[in-house]
């Protein structure tokens, strides 16, 4: 488990005068499930977008398999992206396409599969996320939780080595949330995929994570196992885990 898959090196990102990331450092190992937690607006999605090369850091590097992804030419970056799936916070399904076309998007473009194979693949991926007979529907006809699962099916359609999840369980009922957590773990166990998960849901985190990193004030305040977090006596960490409105973390 010691092989570094993704390395974040001193990532900094500001929007105007607002310093969101102030030097983020982290090694993510191949095959692990890493959760990123932190309060709303702390820069979790920004971190994820830097890893997915959707946003350029002001300074610092993101290394995947030793390659600085923000220095790659477009063709190389796209090669790398076929091995990475991203689940967006709002699912970001293509609303002009059916569920089938959404999930089949990458396989259709990047493999030579025929229609029958595509159909089988899409059905298999949808069943994996607990959906059946929704292929013909339009994304707008789905609940938020279903949209997220379709988004996940789309993200894993090409069997990626890395999956980035932005709040997979937000807006999903507790039973489904548990199912999504199971899914993250199953996927990880079956395929050895490296998973980075953003979550607000402390229960999910403790249930699923191998390691947890807490973003606070633009840096990782604590990186460790769930047990490390449970035993931490850092008041900032404590407040977040106990879900208390009182403590050192300012609400506004």
């Amino acid at each position, binding site marked *: 488990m010691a092989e570094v898959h993704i390395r974040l090196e001193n990532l900094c990102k500001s929007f105007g005068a607002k310093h969101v990331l102030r030097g983020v450092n982290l090694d993510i190992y191949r095959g692990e499930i890493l959760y990123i937690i932190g309060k709303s607006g702390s820069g979790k999605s920004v971190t994820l*977008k830097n890893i*997915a*090369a*959707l946003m350029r850091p002001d300074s610092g590097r993101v290394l995947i398999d030793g390659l600085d992804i923000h220095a790659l030419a*477009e063709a190389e970056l*796209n*090669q790398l*992206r*076929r091995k*990475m*799936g*991203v689940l*967006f*916070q*709002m699912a*970001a*399904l*293509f*609303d*002009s396409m059916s569920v089938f076309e959404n999930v089949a*998007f*990458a396989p259709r*473009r*990047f493999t030579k599969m025929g229609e029958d194979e595509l159909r089988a693949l899409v059905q298999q991926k949808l069943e994996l996320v607990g959906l059946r007979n929704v292929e013909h529907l339009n994304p707008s006809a789905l609940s938020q939780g279903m949209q997220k699962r379709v988004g996940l099916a*789309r*993200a894993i359609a090409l069997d990626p080595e890395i999956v980035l999840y932005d709040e997979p369980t937000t807006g999903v009922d507790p039973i489904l949330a548990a199912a999504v957590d199971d899914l993250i773990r199953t996927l990880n166990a079956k395929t050895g995929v490296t998973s980075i998960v953003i979550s607000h849901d402390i229960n999910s985190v403790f249930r699923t994570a191998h390691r947890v990193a807490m973003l606070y004030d633009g840096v990782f305040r604590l990186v460790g196992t769930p047990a490390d977090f449970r035993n931490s006596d850092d008041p900032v960490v404590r407040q977040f885990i106990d879900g208390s409105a009182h403590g050192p973390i300012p609400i506004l």
Partner: protein
Amino acid sequence: MRKLKQSLLSFFERLGEAILALLETIGAFSIFAGQTFRYCFVPPFDFRNLLYQMSEIGVKSIPVGVVSSFFVGMVMALQLGGPMEQQIQGISAFMGGGISLAMVRELAPVLTSVLLAGRVGSSIAAEVGTMKVTEQIDALATLATNPVHYLSVPRFLAALFCIPMITVMAIVVGILGGALISNISLDIPYNLYFESARTLVRTKDLVSGVSKTFFFGAEIALIACFSGFRARGGAEGVGQATIQAVVFSFMMIIVSDYFITYIFQLFGL
């Protein structure tokens, strides 16, 4: 005095900022247009998507373009016939030539382009803008698909092909509209009308009129896609982008019409 100086200073400051923002937008637009041109020649070539856009942008715009042009032809005959005949007896024998020349060189190209800037430009900007603010464009990128390549290229090519074709239809139908009213209310026989059209309108007029619309089509699609890509901040941002796309393409069509015509005339068109 000091107050005046201060308000002057802040005026120039704001003017400077506005100019910088304008330059920034022009620069970004040029880069975007350049990328779109370049990706036209980069595989994969998505013919399915191109055909779909041609039907959305082209086929569905035919009724708007054709009906409007028919009525413009009719109203021209109505407006010109009486006054011209009052001044010079028999001048309305040239009605066919006058209307046709105006249709071919100016009216059909500009009218079609402006109508399509409204219909097509707004729908492109709204669609791409919605995709931007709902992160669908980011999703495209993570699926190893360049968003400019996937979204902008087919819309650009579709507009480039379809708008000239609709212009040709508009020319034909506009001339027919003029013929109809010339015949009904001015008693000009059809053969006289078309005879006059044939002597006055030459091939170079047609070349000039139709080839302008390639530029207009490119302007419409590029401005609309660009506005969509720059949309931010939810539904309101999409609305802004849409308005911006329509207003700017109207302006660009009218302004560039003058310059394109001027340059064409240098080449004898």
